């Protein structure tokens, strides 16, 4: 199973197992398979480590497998780059990291891996406070052998599930160290339950895996019986239950979620319950009975990330790479924008990856151009001509602010403005007439009225309006796209129409055309 750290090792380490790779050339399932001749590229690097500081021309001629790699320019770039990075590692100066080569697929995929949402970082930064609180709570419960409940809430993408994973591990480790019995841990996602009361059978199954479920009593009753009796054995374990997406358990009568939390209030209960959800006031709204029993769960709120936190997390993720990929200003722009919008970490990671892809695309185009240029020149000139070009390329191959800006605009802009601008003329006129109609304060109207308004506008500009059938068809198309909302009616003309797009969006989109500008004033 490929591991994350394997990919981020320095090229020096990789040269050790290049011999293995040489032998198992065809069978590359030991690493995650990469298309594009990977083992061969590494072999070239191995050879180049031994041949130091030869001229690029001789380097290429002396390595036996240049033709298999692709263009000679690529291999040379790899060699020159490797020499640069070797130099850096030899001098042990990590502050001046080398630039990276965006064309090298190995490096690009390493960066993408570091920025992927599924990669769990080894240390979770910016959530130490919240993790400490949860850990303290669990420690207290285990020490005093008392049951308790905790509610973790926060917007999506704020690191709740990630922190709970870490806390789980930390609790078990601490219990072992401190000499307590490590608790059973049950972590489940409530969306995977078909029936909300299944959660109790899952808890029982975890608690006493050997005991068969008694047919006459429900799992809930069994649990309640268990918790109300004095335990015989004195060394029975506590059980830590982490329930993700707790709001899936909320039913109309809220029975299940009440019973779940009430389990922890029974006198001999040994459950430590941690519920995770998005709603901040779930405990207040849905668990009023607990308040009367004076055992409301403790609430730990995971606030949305601020700009500095996002920046720190991104930098932390990128420190595992041995080269600079992003300009610092670009990262700051991303952090600022995402923090202003939602504070969702997943979005920030996605935007960074998107900016990276843009850089990649830019490079593919420019190398395509350079390849065609160099192919025009003679092959003898090739080596000398591309030398200075390579160094120029390596000068500015980080992700710059403009890449990040384009990625941000693509993520945060809605496609509505572009679509309105590319609608056929008559549909734009229909949208216009709808805007004018609704300016008077009305919220909806019928198709027939809209048709009249549309015909008026067409008359004023001397465009022949389309017939009623086509008008209805166009309204339906606009409804499909989510710009209108058509109601139901037996007769077509009496269907009610509401505008679902903001008026300012339409005005903005159509401002380029003089006619619409005049019309919408």
């Amino acid at each position, binding site marked *: 199973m490929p591991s994350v750290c394997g990919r981020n090792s320095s090229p020096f380490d990789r040269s050790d197992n290049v011999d293995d790779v040489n032998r198992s050339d065809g069978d590359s399932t030991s690493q995650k398979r*990469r298309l594009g001749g990977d083992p061969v590229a590494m072999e070239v690097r191995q050879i180049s480590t031994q041949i130091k500081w030869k001229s690029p021309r001789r380097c290429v001629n002396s390595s036996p497998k240049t033709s298999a790699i692709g263009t000679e320019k690529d291999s040379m770039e790899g060699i020159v780059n490797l020499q640069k990075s070797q130099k850096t590692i030899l001098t042990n100066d990590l502050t001046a990291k080398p630039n990276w080569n965006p064309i090298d697929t190995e490096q690009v995929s390493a960066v*993408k891996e570091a920025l992927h949402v599924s990669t769990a970082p080894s240390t979770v930064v910016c959530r130490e406070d919240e993790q400490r609180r949860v850990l303290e709570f669990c420690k207290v419960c285990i020490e005093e052998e008392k049951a308790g409940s905790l509610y973790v809430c926060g917007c999506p993408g704020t690191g709740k599930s990630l922190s709970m994973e870490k806390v789980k591990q930390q609790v078990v480790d601490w219990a072992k160290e401190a000499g307590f019995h490590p608790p059973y841990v049950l972590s489940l996602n409530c969306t995977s339950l078909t029936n909300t009361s299944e959660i109790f059978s899952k808890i029982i199954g975890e608690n006493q895996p050997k005991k068969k479920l008694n047919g006459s009593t429900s799992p809930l009753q069994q649990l309640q019986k268990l918790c109300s009796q004095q335990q015989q054995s004195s060394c029975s374990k506590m059980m830590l239950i982490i329930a993700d997406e707790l709001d899936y358990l909320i039913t109309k009568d809220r029975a299940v979620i009440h019973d779940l939390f009430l389990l922890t209030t029974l006198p001999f209960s040994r459950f430590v319950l941690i519920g995770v959800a998005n709603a901040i006031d779930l405990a207040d709204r849905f668990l009023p009975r607990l308040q009367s029993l004076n055992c409301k769960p403790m609430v730990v709120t995971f606030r949305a990330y601020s700009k500095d936190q996002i920046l720190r997390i991104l930098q932390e993720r990128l420190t595992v790479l041995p080269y600079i990929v992003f300009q610092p200003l670009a990262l700051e722009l991303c952090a600022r924008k995402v923090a202003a919008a939602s504070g969702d970490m997943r979005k920030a990671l996605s935007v960074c990856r998107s900016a990276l892809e843009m850089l990649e695309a830019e490079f593919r185009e420019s190398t395509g151009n350079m390849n065609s240029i160099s192919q025009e020149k003679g092959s003898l000139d090739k080596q000398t001509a591309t030398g200075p070009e390579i160094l120029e390329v390596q000068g500015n191959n980080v992700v710059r602010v403009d890449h990040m800006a384009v990625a941000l605009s693509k993520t945060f802009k809605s496609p509505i403005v572009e679509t309105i601008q590319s609608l056929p003329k008559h549909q734009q006129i229909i949208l216009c007439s709808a805007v004018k109609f609704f300016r008077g304060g009305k919220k909806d109207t019928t198709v027939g009225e809209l048709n009249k308004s549309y015909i008026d506008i067409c*008359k004023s500009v001397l465009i022949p309006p*389309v017939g009623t059938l*086509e008008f209805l068809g166009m309204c339906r198309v606009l409804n499909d796209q989510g710009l209108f909302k058509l109601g139901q009616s037996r007769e077509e003309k009496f269907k009610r129409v509401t505008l679902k797009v903001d008026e300012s969006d339409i005005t903005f989109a159509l401002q380029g055309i003089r006619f619409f500008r005049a019309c919408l004033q």
Partner: protein
Amino acid sequence: MGKEKNQAGKALNLLRSRLCDPNFIFKPLSDSPETNYSKLKFIISSSIKEACNNSILLLGPRGSGKVSVLELVLGDLLQEHLDQISVIRLNGLLHSDDNCAFKEIARQLCVEHQLLFSKMASFDDNSQFMIAMLQECGLAHKTIIFVLDEFDLFAQGKQRLLYSLLDAMQSVTSQAVVIGVSCRLDADQLLEKRVRSRFSHRKLLFLPPSKEDLERLLEHVLSLPLDSTFSHGYALDFNEKFKSILRDKRFEEVIDTYLNSSSTVSQLLRFLFCAVSFMDVESEFLSLENFKTALLTIQRQPKLECVKDCSILELYLLVCMKRLEVKEQNSYNFNSVMKEYKSVHDTFQTCDYYSRNVCLRAFEHLLQRELICFSDNRGTGQSLEFRPVKLLISPVELYQGLKSYRSCPAILLKLMDR
């Protein structure tokens, strides 16, 4: 002569088959890197190569080629890496219910990997099977591509399917790509916030083709190939003639008029099919007239054609009814129309003055042709003359119908203008 007729017939067949084949239409998109085809291909192939998870949404009006381009990309990728991809297709119209969707996923996975599928499997079994398969395929470096058609319909209800799919993609062990296809522009606003947070916000917008793209498309589709299928001279002549049509200003007008009402690719192809079918096999070449006839055929106005078939008296009655409406008389019946008719005759001294019975007969004809109808829903309580009626044709259409009438009396046009 016979041979050339053959050629023209063959050319017609070739053009028609091209217009019905989406692969042919969207193939030239693969050349340029800016098109949606290349972008989509790049995203999916880089996800496969780097073995990471990805999700993307294809948006655009109906008929703009989203599914065609997607199928083209998937076809290419399946050729390149056959054993590294498996494709699971779901449709929002069929599988928006979570139970149904998981069952279908399990069934397709079983078919793909030659496992036995049990219809008795429960919802739990199916979802665990899917997660297990995702892990297995992740280990075997196989990417599973989920294609969700009508994506906005999956966003109804509790969105459990979307959540489990996107959540499974958050783990390192699985390799999956989720592609959503929808015609609603705000499809991602319909998602719950936790599902939206897990969805990477890549969107590809399918816009109608620009002017240059349109020209390229027309040339690509309607030029005959210069290989041995057709005689060289004929093919050259055909292409020359077609290029001259393309440059004609009137052709531009025809295309613009058509595109003003519907500009998606599928509508355009329908128009071209119509035009090509009008090609005269005798003359062996496409002409501008074909396109004009096609435009008229597609943009029919049924009410106008009805008006053209009316008699002059019936036109008089229609114009009188329109005048009554203009005078803000919201409900009128045959008697009021007759009064108006008489007043018009008195004012303008027209020569067409018919008796009441004849007018009643004309009135019945109009009712049958559905140019007017009764505005109350009672049965046949009252006689025809007293029931309120209303016009079913708008004044604009009536005016156009009068203008294109073969021998419309000038008085009627004058009356319409008031």
